[in-house]
């Protein structure tokens, strides 16, 4: 693999991991928010 191959691999792996984790957090938050009684959703205005 060329040097640029390693650079692209490192950057894209970082981006992919962070994006996947952020999307998982969003999905989990959305699923949990629906289970919490409305009065307890204090920051979700």
């Amino acid at each position: 693999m060329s040097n640029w191959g390693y650079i692209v691999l490192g950057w894209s792996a970082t981006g992919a991991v962070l994006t996947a984790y952020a999307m998982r957090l969003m999905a989990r938050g959305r699923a949990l928010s629906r289970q919490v009684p409305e009065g307890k959703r204090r920051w979700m205005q």
Partner: protein
Amino acid sequence: MTKADAVTTTGSRATRILAALAALGVVWLVLLGLVFSPADQTQGELVRLMYVHVPSAWLAYLSFSLTAVGSAFVLWKKSQWWDLVAASAAEIGVLFCGLALLTGMIWGRPTWGTYWEWGDARLVSTLVLFLVFVGYLAIRRIPADPTVRANRSAIVALIGVVNIPLVHFSVKWWRTLHQEATVLSTDFDPKLDDLMLFTLFFSVVVFTLVFAWLLVHRFRIAWLEDQVDMHSLGIALDERRREAELVGGGS
């Protein structure tokens, strides 16, 4: 976004502003890191991996330090809020520490000719740090009373955080393949081109914005999980009380 959507996410106005700033920062970081910043005299183009590897390692340090601060407050003040902060920061710390290891391995292959070297103090101590906090997350998954779980995991975090100075100074204390600290060296005289140094600082700022966004969302999820547990427990207790009343009334 409709009003119904607005109340079913862990987002808020503050996190949306944070996300916009982080997204803008990522665009500039890609341009600076991959296009505008120059190649290094010894590392060549490979130095561009520094702009994802170093901030990942910095965020791992920050996350685990925050976990330790939260854990100290858990043991001292019996604070549930700090327990959730500690747990949230630990999960994100494991993510960034894993990224630091991964990008380090990717950088190591063309530079040292190997992805991994078991004799290298920096690599092995970072792996130990990573595994200790994976253990912290595993301990939190063992079913237990919330107070017991919080105390148990807080002790692990306070033991684990001792590893951070060991990881950081391992390149000074032992002979390693890994180079010494570029910026946080003892003489505070980084041997870097101005634009490279700026890009490195900028990458740390952008990653810290991403970290802040992730932490707020992860904390809110942890808080929601507690609310759902308490709500479910309340419903179960009400059912038990009704059953007891029925049995008591019938006898």
